[in-house]
Every structure is written in C-alpha cells, then in structure tokens.
C-alpha cells in the first residue's frame, strides 16, 4: 500500500474530471491511500465561482478521510526554508511569493507524514528530500495546455 498526498492542482484536476489525472488515479492499486493537506483545503475554500460546490466536495472528501497537517516540529523548519529558498521565489516587488509559503507547508506535510507528494507544479523541484511524483514529467499523464509547467 502506497500513500499519496495530492497537491492542490491535482485535486482541482480530479474535481474537473481531467482524463489524464484520472488515468493516473485509476492505474493505482485500489488500496493505495490518497490524502489532501489542510493547506490545500484552505486554498480550495477560497474558490469563489463554485463556492457551494467546492464546499460540498470537501465535505464529501472529509467524510472519508482526515486532512493532513504539518506536524509542529516540521513547522519550525519553515522559516529557515523560506530564508534559504525564498530568494529564488520572489515576485516583482521582491516579496517571497505567497504561494511558495503554501508550497513549503504542503512539502513539510508530505515530509512529516512520509507520503509521496503528487503534483504538476515544477516549483516543488527545489525540495529534494522527499519523494515527489511530477505527473507532468510522465508523457502518459502530461497535459498539453499547462503553459508554464
């Protein structure tokens, strides 16, 4: 049994019924576990246009599964990570990109739970001490319309 933590982009693709992402999901062992982090849930709740539907989807997911959060001792490492990697992740105003802060939390969640992180976001390539599955790197699951990945 393998444990996977889905990044927000992958959850969105599943909700959209993306064929390539569902192909990956269906090819897993039926008993493999799938989790999402509390950070992803918070991000999804910011969705405005499909707010009600998103809430229902999250409720249905939560009925089956708990959310994963970063363990406190791993949270302590995040400021250091932001200082170390933050320089490469600045916006035009030289501020550390907000989404990078969330990437750090999701990465630390995967690390603290020992799960494989599944994403298409190449931003996660800066983290090299956990197993990350980049679906975009596999021609079988690659999405053609993903512009900047």
């Amino acid at each position, binding site marked *: 049994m393998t444990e996977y933590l889905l990044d927000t*982009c992958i959850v969105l693709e*599943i909700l959209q*019924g993306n064929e390539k992402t569902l192909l990956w999901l269906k090819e897993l062992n*039926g008993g493999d576990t799938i989790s999402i982090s509390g950070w992803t849930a918070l991000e999804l709740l910011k969705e405005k246009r499909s707010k009600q539907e998103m809430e229902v*989807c999250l*409720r249905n997911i939560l009925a089956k599964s708990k959310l994963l959060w970063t363990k406190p001792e791993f949270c302590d490492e995040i400021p250091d990570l932001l200082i170390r990697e933050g320089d490469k992740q600045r916006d035009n105003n030289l501020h550390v*990109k907000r989404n990078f802060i969330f990437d750090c939390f999701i990465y630390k969640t995967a690390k603290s739970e020992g799960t494989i992180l599944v994403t298409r976001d190449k931003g996660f390539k800066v983290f090299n001490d956990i197993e990350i599955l980049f679906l975009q790197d596999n021609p079988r699951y690659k999405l053609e319309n993903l512009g900047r990945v």
Partner: protein
Amino acid sequence: MKKSKKDNSGEVKLEVHLEGKDCNKNIISLDDLQNLIAGVNGLSKYVTRKKLGKDVKSRLDKEAKEICTLGVKDIKKGSAILEIEAYPDGQQKLNREVNSQSIMQDTISLINEFQEDENKIPLELGPYFDSLTKPLNKEKSNLSFSLYSAGVIVIKSEVLTTTSRNKVQKILARKRLEGGIMYGLLKEINLKDYSSKLQLFNKKLEKFYFDKDFWEKIRDLLQQKVEVRFEGKGYNKKMIDIKILSSFQEKQKMTVKDLLNSGVVGALKHRTDIKDSVEYSKKLADDLLK
C-alpha cells in the same frame, strides 16, 4: 384587484406563449398554469432580491411585492397565451433601476442566459426553472415570453423547448451535490413532520427530514451513534441513508477506491475556464494570504 399605478413605465405586461400542447382543447391546463406562474414568480423575486441587494427572504417578499406584484390578467383561448401584469402594490419607493419593467426585463434576460448556458445559472434557481419548463412535456411543445410596456414590445425571450428540460436536469444534478455525511447521536424522531435530530460532537442539534417509508429504518436507532447521509442544506436537509456506528473512531485515510466513489470526481466539470490547474492553485493560495 388593488392596483396603484405609481410606476411611470405604464402597463407592464408579460405574455407567456405555450405552444404545441393541443392547446385548442385545453387552453392551458391548471397544472401548466400553476407551474408557469410558480416559475415566473420565483425568478422575478430572485431578480428583485438581487436588484435590492438583499438576501433576507422574508423581508424581501414584502418589499418585492410592493415593487412588483404579478397577477394573471388574461388567458387567451386558441393560441394559449397567458398574460401576466406586473405592477407596484404598496408604498415602497421606486427608482429607475428597480421597477416592475426592469425586474421583468431582467427575468427574461435570466431565462435567455439559462437557454444559452445552464452552467451560468445559480443552483438556487433550479426549482424555478424546473417549474417553468414542466409544461414542456410534449415533443413539439415550446414556450416563450414577450414583455410589453404601454403596448410596445421591450424584450422577447429565446424559445424554450423540450431540450430545455434536459438543461434543468443538469442544474438539479448540480444542486443534488449539496449534501454530505454527518456523524452524531440520534436524539429525536418526530413523526408529526417526519424529522429527526442528530446531536453532533459539539452538542449542536442538526435537523433532517426523512421520507415516511424511512420510519422502519430509523425507529430502532434512537440514542445510537449513527452516520447520516443527506441531500440539501440548511433547514432543508433530507436524510437519504442512516447507519449505526460502533464508535466515533478517528477517520482513516481514504483509499483510491473511496475517492473514485466519493462523488467528487468531475463535480466541477463545467469549470472549463480553469485551463491551468497549477496557475489556478497559485491564485487561490495568493488570495488566501491577501
């Protein structure tokens, strides 16, 4: 009928054309009439609420009535035209943006939006469009609306046909998404209104209605820890399944199979505007920290 003609736009008349239903014999059946009126009334009240910028329904009903009351004026035999007149009925101060004509005009625009793309229609309007299109139950039946002000046509709707019924089903399918599962102690069963109350872990009581036939299933579960599967939301939650739990164990991680069967796969299929999930998720993260 009490009327106060304060609206400067003159007589506002909505003509509802229902065709292809052997109308020569039936004019408009009482069932169709009831559904058409419920649909138009519901949609126009929604438009009024949006125009007034108010979400409190009880307060709105009074104000809406004062601004725009609908009444059946005439039913023409032969061509099956239902005439509905819109007029202000009360002391509510009117303005250029919110008056009988503009409300009915926007109601027709809403019907046209529905006909163009049902995904643009808010879920709460599903039942009104359901009522409105129920008369379209014969192959060649069609429905259209024309708005007149002082005898001059203002706006005409697209023609709704039997395919419009399929659009409604899609909206209702989205609406059925509302719901989920709750866990708690079954504290009350009320056979007067076929409802039950579930005490959640925080001691809050949640009310669920259930079908009469459900009584057999629920009666022995009083004071038991249960899992309730339901549809709807707020005060309109309907229990669709209930099962006893041995304990409120900590939730486990979900399996791939659980996820595929959870009903969330493809739930946002209509969101074709999200082309790049990575960029979109970054935007959500950005919004969260703003």
